[in-house]
């Protein structure tokens, strides 16, 4: 990797290196905008697809239960356990 003049100067001068870490208010933001954008879209779609999947699964369970109950009521002989 090619060094820039400022990099060379820093590396060549040992006195320029950090000797302590000081907290600063509002330091430079380095988070990648692209990664934040992609994360936001992935999270939003995951939430939506999770909701759709749970709805689809629950609808299947409810339809099965309706079919069981309708069968029990029409034949009048079944002894199903209560509860969904």
């Amino acid at each position, binding site marked *: 990797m090619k060094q820039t003049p400022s990099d060379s100067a820093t590396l060549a001068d040992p006195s320029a290196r950090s000797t302590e870490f000081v907290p600063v208010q509002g330091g430079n933001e380095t988070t990648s*905008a692209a990664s934040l954008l992609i994360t*936001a879209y992935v999270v939003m779609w995951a939430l939506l697809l999770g909701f*759709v999947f749970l709805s*689809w699964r629950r*609808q299947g369970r409810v339809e099965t239960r309706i079919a069981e109950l309708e069968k029990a009521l029409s034949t009048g002989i079944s002894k*199903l356990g*209560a509860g969904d």
Partner: protein
Amino acid sequence: MPRSKDPLFYALLATTTAVFVYLIGYVFLIAPVAQLQAGGLAQKIFYFHVPAAYAMYLCGTVCCVSSAMYLLNPSDIRDAVGRAAAECAVVFGFMMLASGPLWAKKAWGVYWTWDPRLTTTLLSVLVYVSVVVLRAFAGNGEAERKFASALGVLGTINLPIIHYSVLKWGGNHPTVIGQGGGGLRHPAMTHALIMGFVAMTLLAAILLWARARLALSVSRVARLEEQAIASGQLDY
């Protein structure tokens, strides 16, 4: 999703999918990147974040109207729509609350701040969460339905407070659209936002339809079970 044989449902589903595919392509490939202070590339979250907030308002309004109608004249369909709308409001609320902080991290340098709009929005989402939790765990009785309906009406009263909170109390949240805002300075940005609103409206309609059908099916199961128990064909 409902295993519906209704062609209108599938037509709506196909249209929603097509609009979302177009929207995603347009936002990522055509809509220009905004200025750095607005988050630069991360500003593109805006085209889903704001429509998600609008969809939450929409579902909240449906929840309020159907809950108020249920309180005046109870029926299964009104209860089902109110319940479905509260669930959809929670989903859109979470979409908004998940995307907003990621944009804020780039634009403001922090994920969250107790800004008036953020705080009132969080409060509103929590009210809808409480409606959903109440209906999920407190049973399906008349008293529980009425209490949840009252909570649904209360949650929607908070929505105008959110809308006007920035104007009244200030804060960090952008005011780009409407009073005091400079608007979107490129036609492609405006088009992307309009398509975002169209896509979220269609999505809200399809989710409301699906969840209301599910809630009606659950009510039907409860009635069939009562009928079966009363006729001695079903044991406790």
